[in-house]
């Protein structure tokens, strides 16, 4: 007879000293875990609810300007800094961590309409409706940290007066050039007092300009004749033009897929385009109920933030038709400019109510240093939520956002209108000769013409 029975001595299965960690034994046998699928589903549901409980996206407001914020610029070389320009000609550099003004750049007579910093973060370029372009020296990070400001207003490095008012400016990536938008697109050099190059296509003023992050010589501009124009600095004439049904307020290139850009349009939608193939948008991002004023991509290229005239800020996936997040407060007015910070974890919005607001990019993210166990817990919650996201209950909780009443009503109204339009189109199609009416997808419908 051979016999063996289970026998566990306490010493082998408990810790030796009280300072030791408790010993942990694992057995992954599915038979030991009863109803594991139901348990997992309940965990997913709880994780979705907890996400809602911990959703506190608003961190704080940066107060100081005395007129509405018109433009912002990130400092590519310094994470904590953000520049903002206002309608009364004031430019400020903020420290995001302490949410205070580090220094001011006085000088503009009218509204500041464009701000940008060079890639090395040394030079700030501003332009405005007073027909001047000003170059400023950005104070070094160490100086900006010491808050006791003996003299925190800066003198411009150079002031260039030009023929027309400016609507926007953008600096070339890794180069010496910057482009201003006004009556035409002007290309400037740091060391010249006059533009080195000028592009014009049509007679309408250009309202936004943005350099491509991957190919430094390519830039996209939008004009008030509802067109989107691509320029190549190596050529003497503009490359391509696309005319849409409504005006584009702002453009942002995807930093990770530099051939794609997204245009924030006056018709409440954003349109993602492939610059090589402009006859059709890659994706239409719908959700705003009023004109989209500004757009900025996250440095990861996976999502972008938009600010709108409907007083909300939304975050979209780069390929998602609807927003994943909406931010609003009672006091925030029309949003004119938004920026993703360079670490992709915060969003800054500047609005009509003279404040900059700082938001978390993920509403329920836990800030601060995470312990490994905490991090694992968060990862597990993400994973179960992702696994059961298609189930109706989880989906409902994850998708639900409370909206301010005017926006909720406006969204409902827009929905009814589009639905009615679609129904009418369907009926018209059904009652006309087959093939005589073709429906265009929304990706194409808003495009009038592509000009080479």
């Amino acid at each position, binding site marked *: *007879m051979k016999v063996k029975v289970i*026998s566990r001595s306490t010493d082998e299965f408990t810790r030796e000293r009280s300072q030791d960690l408790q010993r942990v*034994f694992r057995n992954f*046998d*599915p038979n030991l875990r009863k*109803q594991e699928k139901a348990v997992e589903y*309940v965990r997913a549901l709880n994780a979705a609810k907890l996400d809602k409980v911990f959703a506190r996206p608003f961190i704080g407001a940066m107060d100081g300007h005395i007129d509405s914020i018109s433009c912002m610029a990130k400092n590519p070389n310094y994470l904590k800094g953000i520049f903002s320009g206002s309608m009364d000609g004031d430019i400020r550099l903020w420290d995001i961590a302490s949410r205070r003004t580090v220094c001011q750049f006085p000088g503009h007579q009218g509204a500041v309409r464009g701000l940008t910093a060079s890639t090395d973060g040394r030079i700030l370029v501003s332009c405005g409706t007073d027909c001047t372009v000003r170059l400023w020296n950005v104070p070094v990070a160490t100086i900006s940290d010491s808050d006791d400001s003996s003299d925190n207003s800066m003198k411009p490095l150079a002031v260039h007066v030009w023929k027309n008012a400016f609507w926007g400016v953008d600096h070339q990536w890794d180069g010496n050039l910057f482009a201003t938008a006004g009556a035409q697109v002007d290309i400037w050099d740091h060391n010249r007092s006059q533009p080195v190059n000028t592009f014009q296509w049509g007679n309408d003023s250009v309202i936004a300009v943005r350099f491509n992050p991957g190919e430094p010589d390519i830039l996209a501009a939008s004009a008030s004749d509802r067109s989107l124009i691509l320029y190549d600095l190596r050529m003497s004439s503009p490359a391509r033009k696309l005319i849409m049904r409504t005006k584009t307020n702002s453009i942002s290139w995807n930093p990770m897929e530099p051939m794609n850009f997204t245009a924030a349009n006056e018709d409440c939608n954003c349109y993602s385009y492939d610059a090589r193939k402009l006859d059709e948008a890659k994706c239409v991002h719908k959700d705003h109920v009023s004109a989209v004023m500004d757009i900025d991509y996250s440095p990861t290229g996976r999502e972008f933030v938009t600010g709108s005239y409907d007083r909300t800020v939304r975050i979209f996936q780069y390929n998602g038709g609807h927003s994943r997040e909406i931010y609003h407060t009672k006091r925030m007015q029309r949003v004119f400019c938004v920026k993703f910070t360079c670490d992709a974890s915060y969003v800054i919005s500047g609005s009509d109510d003279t404040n900059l607001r700082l938001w978390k990019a993920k509403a329920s993210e836990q800030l601060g240093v995470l312990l490994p166990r905490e991090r694992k817990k968060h990862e597990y919650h993400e994973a179960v939520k992702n696994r059961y996201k298609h189930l109706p209950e989880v989906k409902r909780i994850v998708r639900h956002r409370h909206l301010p009443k005017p926006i909720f009503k406006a969204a409902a109204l827009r929905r009814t209108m589009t639905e009615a339009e679609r129904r009418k189109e369907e009926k018209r199609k059904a009652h006309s000769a087959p093939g005589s009416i073709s429906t265009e997808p929304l990706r194409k419908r808003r495009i009038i013409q592509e000009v080479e």
Partner: protein
Amino acid sequence: MGVEQENGTPTEMVPASEQDISDELDVKVKKYLRGEGANLEALQDKKLKGQLVIREELYGKSAKAAAKAEKWLMPSEGGYLEAEGIEKTWRIKQESIAREVDILSSKNQYDIVLPELGPYTLDFTSSGRYMAVGGRKGHLAIIDMKNMGVIKDFQVRETVRDVVFLHNELFFAAAQKKYPYIYNRDGTELHCLKEHGSVLKLQFLKNHFLLASINKFGQLHYQDVTMGEMVGNYRTGLGRTAVMQVNPFNGVVGLGHSGGIVTMWKPTSSAPLVKMLCHHGPISALAFHPNGHLMATAGMDKKIKLWDLRKFEVLQTLPGHAKTLDFSQKGLLATGTGSFVQILGDFSGTENYSRYMGHSMAKGYQIGKVLFRPYEDVLSIGHSMGWSCILIPGSGEPNFDSWVANPFETSKQRREKEVHSLLDKLPPETIMLDPTKIGTVRQSRKREKPTKQERKAEMEAAVEDAKSIPLRKKMKGKNKPSKKVKKREEAVARAKKPFLERQMEEENLSTKKQKISGEIELPKSLQRFARKKATT
């Protein structure tokens, strides 16, 4: 597990080749994969397909990792009992086992004799560390099985019919003469559950925090012990019974009735999920295999039956009485009757149970309850003269998981676990016959109605079929062309008939609808001019 094999010639130890190891791993991987992967070939959506391919790969990897961890990292191995020569495992006595095993294990073999306080019933916590015992005459006790210390024992001076632990060892419920009560570890009465009435049998559903009871009048009660809410209260309508068992796999409660019927219940429906006739005569005991696919029933008709719960079919019928049945974690089945316990085992892997061990108590002991101790090779027997424990090698799961049930749990860990299990408390709706259905999407049953053209085409096809059937040659005189033509016409009419009938029905329906709507449309002032029906 105890496997009988002939060890005539000493076999050489051959190092396992890589092939063997990979084969062994494959079997284990299959266990951890929890079923087949999704059929990705049938998918049209490329994006979804890509996502699912990655997901399936991940599942495969994690299953492999788990299988490897099982193979190399598990601290202990399961027990076994092997007969040598002409020995038979069922002839081996407990005394001879006690001589062979280590001192620690032989301590698990004992009899507690308490003759005055009547037949005992018992229950274990899920880790097997603590045992609650209840004597019929009112003796309640909690025992720490690790050091054999009585934590608390007290007398309630009332009939005690059943005891059951709640989610941990701090609380237990006892079914007493008039009502069930909940006590804590110190013997303090916490609750009296008057709504349950005089309960015969209690069961606790651990994942759902539900206390299920069956009372004298055959009423089944479910009470949520966290909030105290009564979740369900159902009349079984099949009379008094004390045979109740929870299926651990899906949380369904099985009841055995005096008419030989086994019913299965969930807290959210007033009718049983399953009603099956298992025996001719009253059912005396019921047990579920931990994997949920096997049920054992014993009846007064001197039969023990094993049922496949996926097909609801008898797998095996064994002769014999059983007052009580229990499955161990590794699938051994203990049956107790009179003063004799028999252990059956499934050694062929084909769910064919045969006798494995036996044990007879002293004459005159009446066994009331047998229960395997989780994570140990021990069977506890509650009987009329106290309780006993015997060693059954190969019955328990050798490796515990600290996060599931830990026999060496500290009080801090217990507190932590209580909070976690409360967070993961399942709603009562998750109790269903097939718990793998949770988290899946129900396919829409609604089929679109065939259009008019489709129906027409179908009918024409049927007519063509009918026409093309060759007619048999008949006897002379009955084979006339006119008769043939007539037969063909009849066949065609027969083929057309169902289609026409359906069409008629639909037309009738639509006209009826119109009629009803027409009646409603008539203004009230004009209704009196409408034609009355001819009934009056």
